[in-house]
C-alpha cells in the first residue's frame, strides 16, 4: 500500500464514520460538529485528487460560513428531542433491513472488481494540464464549456433568494418601527405647541 492510498483510506474511514455519527447522535450540536468533520475529511480527499481549490472552498464556504450559521440556529432554537425521536425505533427494523440490503447490493455492484482503475473508462481520467493552476483551470472551464449550467445555477440561486424572501418577509401593521427619514425631517413646531395663557391673579 502506498502512502497515498493509506491517507485516502484513513480519511475515507473518518468521513464515513463522522457521516454515520451525524445521523445517529442524539445531541444536535454534536451532530453539526460531526458534519464539520465530515466536510473537512472530504476536503482532504479532494486534496489527494489535486483539486486544491475545491478543497479550500469546501472548508471556507461550508465549514466557515454555512456550518457556523447552522450551529447558531441549532443553539438558538429549542429542539425538542423527544418529539424528534418518536417513532424512530418503530421503523428501525424495516429501515435497517432495507439499508443493509442496499449496502450489500451496492457493494456487489461497485466492488473493486467492477470499478478497478483499468475498468473505468479512460475518458473519465484526464491528465491535469501542466503549468495551469487549479483555480485558473476551473475558471476557464466554468466560463467556456460549462457556461450554460453555470448560468442555470445562478438562476437557481436567484429563485432561492426570491423564495426565501417571499416566504419569510411580512409587513405587519402592528409592529412599531422607526423611520429615520421622518425623524430627521421633524420640525420643532410639529412637536411643540406654545399656548398663550393669561396670567392668573394671585389669590
Amino acid at each position, binding site marked *: 500500500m502506498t502512502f497515498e492510498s493509506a491517507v485516502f483510506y484513513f480519511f475515507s474511514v473518518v468521513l464515513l464514520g463522522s457521516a454515520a455519527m451525524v445521523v445517529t447522535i442524539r445531541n444536535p450540536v454534536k451532530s453539526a460538529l460531526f458534519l464539520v468533520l465530515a466536510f473537512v475529511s472530504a476536503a482532504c480527499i479532494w486534496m489527494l485528487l489535486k483539486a486544491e481549490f475545491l478543497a479550500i472552498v469546501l472548508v471556507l464556504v461550508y465549514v466557515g460560513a454555512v456550518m457556523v450559521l447552522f450551529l447558531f440556529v441549532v443553539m438558538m432554537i429549542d429542539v425538542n428531542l423527544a418529539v424528534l425521536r418518536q417513532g424512530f425505533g418503530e421503523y428501525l427494523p424495516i429501515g435497517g433491513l432495507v439499508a443493509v440490503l442496499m449496502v450489500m447490493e451496492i457493494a456487489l455492484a461497485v466492488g473493486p472488481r467492477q470499478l478497478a482503475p483499468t475498468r473505468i473508462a479512460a475518458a473519465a481520467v484526464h491528465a491535469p494540464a501542466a503549468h495551469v493552476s487549479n483555480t485558473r483551470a476551473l475558471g476557464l472551464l466554468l466560463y467556456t464549456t460549462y457556461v450554460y449550467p453555470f448560468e442555470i445555477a445562478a438562476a*437557481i440561486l436567484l*429563485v432561492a433568494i426570491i423564495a426565501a424572501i417571499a416566504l419569510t418577509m411580512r409587513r405587519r401593521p402592528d409592529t412599531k418601527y422607526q423611520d429615520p427619514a421622518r425623524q430627521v425631517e421633524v420640525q420643532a413646531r410639529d412637536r411643540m405647541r406654545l399656548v398663550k395663557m393669561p396670567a392668573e391673579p394671585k389669590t
Partner: protein
Amino acid sequence: MMHIRPVLPEIVVFSMACVILLADLFWKRRFKGLMYGLTQATLIAAAIIAYSLRNEAPRVVLHGMVIGDRLSIVLQIAIFMLTAIVLAYSRTYIAERGVFRSEYFVLALTGVVGMCVMVSAAHFLSLYLGLELLSLSLYALIALQRDSIAATEAAMKYFVLGALSSGLLLYGLSMLYGATGSLSISRVATALAALPRHDMVATLGLVFVLSGLAFKLGAVPFHMWVPDVYEGAPTAVTLYVGAAPKVAAFALFLRLLVEGLHGLSGAWQEMLVLLAFLSMAIGNVVAIAQTNLKRMLAYSAIAHMGFLLLGLLSARTSGYADALFYALVYAFMTLGAFGVIILLSRKGFEAERLEDLRGLYQRSPWYAWVMLLIMFSMAGVPPTIGFYAKFAVIQAAVSAGFYGLAVAAVLFSVIGAFYYLRIVKLMFFDAPVDSSPLRQGRDLRWILSANGIAMVLAAPWAGTLIAICRAAVRGLP
C-alpha cells in the same frame, strides 16, 4: 447569435421574470394587473419564438449542453400553453386568497425555465440543474400561502422527498459517469454500446436513475408524495404541479432512458413493466376509496402515469410517440378537472370534497356537461380524445408483445371508470347541497368551456396530433 437560437425561449422567459420582479418594485400600486398581463404575454411570446424555430435542423449547442430538436420544441410549446392556461384559471383564485403577488408569477416563470431546460437537455448537468430549478420553484409556490398549515406541510413533505429523489438521481448519474466516462447523453449512449451487455456499474446507475425519475413522475412505488401534495397545496398550485411538470418529467424519461441508456433497454423495460403495473393497480383501486376530490385526482394521476409508461416500455419509436401523445392529452384533461374545482371554489370555501360536486347539473347545466366530458375523457370513453390516447398506449404495449400487461391495463381502466362515473352520477342525479351561484371571472369560464369541448372536438384530429408526436420523436433511437 446563431448558436444560442435553440435557447431563445428560455432566455426570453427568464429575462422577463427578472423584469417582472423589478417592475413590481416601481409599479405595483399603479397597475394592479400588470404582473399577470406581463406573465401571460411572456408565455405567449416564448411559444411563438419556439414555434418559429420548428423548421431548423436538430443540433446540439453551447458545448454539448443543449439540444434543439423537434421534440424539445413540441414539449416547450406545450409547457408554455399549459402554464398560460394554469395562470388564467388561477387568477381569481389566488387574488381571493391573498397570493396575487409578483413572486407567484416570477416563480411560475422560473419553473417554466427549469422545465424548458429539462426537455432540451443534452448533458446530465443541464438536465439536473433544470430539474432543480423547477423543483425549487415548485416548493416555494406550494408554501407561498403562508397562513395555510396544510400547504406548509405539503411543501415540507415535497421538499424532503424531492431532495431524497434528487440524491438518488445524482447517485445514479455518478455511477453512469463511472461506467462510461462522460456526462454528455450522446457520448454515454455510444460508450454504453461498447460495454458488455450486463455491465454491473451501468445497471446500478440505471436503477438509481430510474428511481429518481419515477419519483418525479409520481409512479408507484415512488408515489407517496403525490396525494399529500395535491391535497395540501392551494388548488391553483396543484393545477400547476399536475400539468406541465408531468410533461417535463416524461421528457426526462425520453432524454435519459431512451437517448442515453438505450443500450440498457432490456433492463429498463422490465423495471418499467413493474412500475406501470403497480401504478395502474394502486392508482385506480385506491382512488375509489377517496372522498376528497383533489386526493382522488391525485390517485388518478398516479394511474395515468402507469398508462403513460405503457407506451414507453415498448422501447420503440412509435411507442414513444404514443406516450408523448398520452402525456399531452393527460395534461390538458387534468387542467380541466382542476379548473372545475377552481370554478366551484370561492373566497373562504374550497370545493374539494366529492359532495361539493353534488347536483352541479341543477346549479349550472353547462359546467356539469363540461365536467362530464372531462371525466369521460379521463376514463377513456370512446368519442373523447382520452380514449384515443389510452387506445394508442395499449396498442403500443400489445405490439411490443406485452399481452398480459395490456389486458391488465384494460381491466384497470374499467375499474378506474367507476370513480369517474361516480362523479357524473353525483353531478347529474343528486340534489345539490350547496346552491350558491358560481361566481368566477369570464376568462376562466371561456377557457374552461373550450377545454371541456376540446375533449370531444379534438378527437377527429387525434391522427394529426399523433403525427406531430411521431415527427417529434423521430430522432430518438
